Each structure stands twice: as C-alpha cells, then as structure tokens.
C-alpha cells in the first residue's frame, strides 16, 4: 500500500513539474494572452488535453500558430476563429454561445431556478404542517 502511494505521489509530482511548453514571449501582456489561449484550445490529437499541456507535435504546431498570430497583432477572437474555421467548434474547451449551445449555457440557471421553486414549496408545506400540529411530542410517543 505504501509503495503504491509513493508511486502515485511520484507520478503526480512528475505531472505537475514537467511543463510541456516552455516558450516565453518577451511582452508579458502577450505572454498572458498566449497562456490563456493555449489553455482553452483542444489538442485535436489527444482531445482531452489542451494544446498547452499536450506533448504531441500537432499541439506544438498549433501553439506556434497561436504565437505567430499574437505577435502579428491578432486579437484573441481572431485566434479562436482561425482554429474554429479549421477544426470546428469542438476545438474550443469553452463553447461559444449560439443557438446550438444555448441550452448548454442556460440549463444550469434554469435547473437552479426550478430547484429553488421546489425547495421553497416543500419548506412552506412543511412549516404549514408543523403549524397544524399543536399536540406536544411526548404525548405522541406515550400513546398506546
């Protein structure tokens, strides 16, 4: 067991310490945008990793494309549009709001409101029941 734990700890350590992307842009503002963008674009080859985290060649090529666009003065949306035009909406880890994705963005709010309404109604019913019940609790128990 201890060995397994040790192995796990070591593996976790590796995962966090080993940075795939060591590129630094000289402009700190661009660097911040570069980091943000590469963390929201999907590596199409590994599909559950961002291009910032993926070690495959395609991710490196995509990071280079992001870098070059930023250095050329393109906006974040230009970069996203570039990738979506080539790979489709799937490349965005944060889907954009559209007719197709509306339910995805709105569903949590709608569910929360429904839940709140149900909760309020249940609580009201309960307190109404408690209000009707005037007999002390002990009598209930001691009843034959």
């Amino acid at each position, binding site marked *: 067991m201890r060995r397994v734990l040790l192995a796990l700890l070591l593996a976790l350590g590796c995962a966090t310490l080993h940075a795939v992307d060591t590129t630094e842009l000289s402009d700190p503002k661009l660097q911040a945008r570069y980091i943000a963008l590469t963390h929201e674009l999907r590596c199409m080859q590994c599909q559950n990793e961002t291009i910032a985290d993926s070690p495959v060649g395609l991710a490196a*090529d*995509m990071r280079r*494309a992001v870098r070059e666009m930023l250095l050329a003065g393109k906006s974040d949306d230009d970069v996203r549009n570039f990738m979506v035009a080539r*790979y*489709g909406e*799937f490349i965005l880890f944060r889907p954009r709001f559209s007719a197709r994705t509306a339910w995805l963005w709105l569903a949590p709010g709608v569910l929360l409101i429904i839940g709140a309404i149900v909760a309020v109604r249940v609580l009201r019913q309960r307190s109404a029941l408690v209000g009707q019940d005037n007999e002390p609790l002990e009598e209930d128990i001691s009843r034959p």
Partner: protein
Amino acid sequence: MNRFLVPLGAFALLAIVLAISIKHSPEKGIIPSPLIGKAAPPFNLPVLNDSTRTLSNADLKGRWYVFNVWGTWCVSCREEHPFLLQIQKSGLVPVIGLDWKDDDAQAREWLSQLGNPYQTIAVDREGRTAIDWGVYAAPESFLVNPQGIVVYKCTGELTPEIWQTQFVPRLAAGRAGS
C-alpha cells in the same frame, strides 16, 4: 404516485434528449470537418521528388483529386498504402500526397519500397498546411472537386468500403453533372 410524476417525467425527458444526442453524435473520436463545402485551403509547397518544383492548389484547379495526408511515422498509413496503389491503378482520380512533418529521405525510401500511389507529393515539413486543412490524425483523405471545393473528408485509414460508399458516388455524381 402523483408526487413522483413530475420528477419521473423530467427524468424521462432528459433520458430521451440524451439518447437522441448520443445517437446523432458522430463516431467516437471523429470530428466533422468544417471544411466540407468550402474552398480547399491554399498551399504552395515543395514537391518531394523534384526540388525545382512547387505544388499549389492553383495547379490542381479544374480536376478532381484526392488529397491524402500521410507520413512514414504513421502506422495506419502503411496499412492504407496498398489500397492507395489500387486507386492509382484504377485511374479513377489522381491522388495528391501531403507528406506531413516527415523526413524527405525516409519518405523516398518508403515510396521505393512500397510503391508510389501519388501523382505528386507536396512536402509539409513544418505542418502549417496540415493545420490549414484541419488535419489532426494521419492518414486523412480529402476529395476535392474541379472548382476546388472540398467535398468529403475521411479521417483515418481509407478503406475499400469508405471508398466505394463515399468517394466513388460523389465522383460519379459530380462527373455526371458537369
């Protein structure tokens, strides 16, 4: 009974919605290309077997072609290779190769060992053209029409079945119409 009706109904509705989306979702791991119906992304690349030449889409306008992305590092490409040779033999449509992030010498050796199914091979050493075409997993095969529009994309190995059901009918329909 009544108090369970609403949650049960909601659950059933959710199950139906999810079942429909799963049914309509594409095959696992295959993402539909946004390129279908659009102009083939422009490229202008060196040709593998002739260092004096380059190949661009402009050179390919006016005829059907299959754009096949491959590399010697790609295992499925080796499996696909004999069928590409068959396509070439059939003479139905020229196959243009895109040698993706590969070593030129290794690529030449591969072709001399396994045979060359390509009419021309463009070399994409840096992988820029591949990104423009939305390539993410070699092999990939695009069918492009004489107007330069991408008509179909096959991600992964091009099998005789996909060829017969997807490529051949589109070629036949396109040629009958023109």
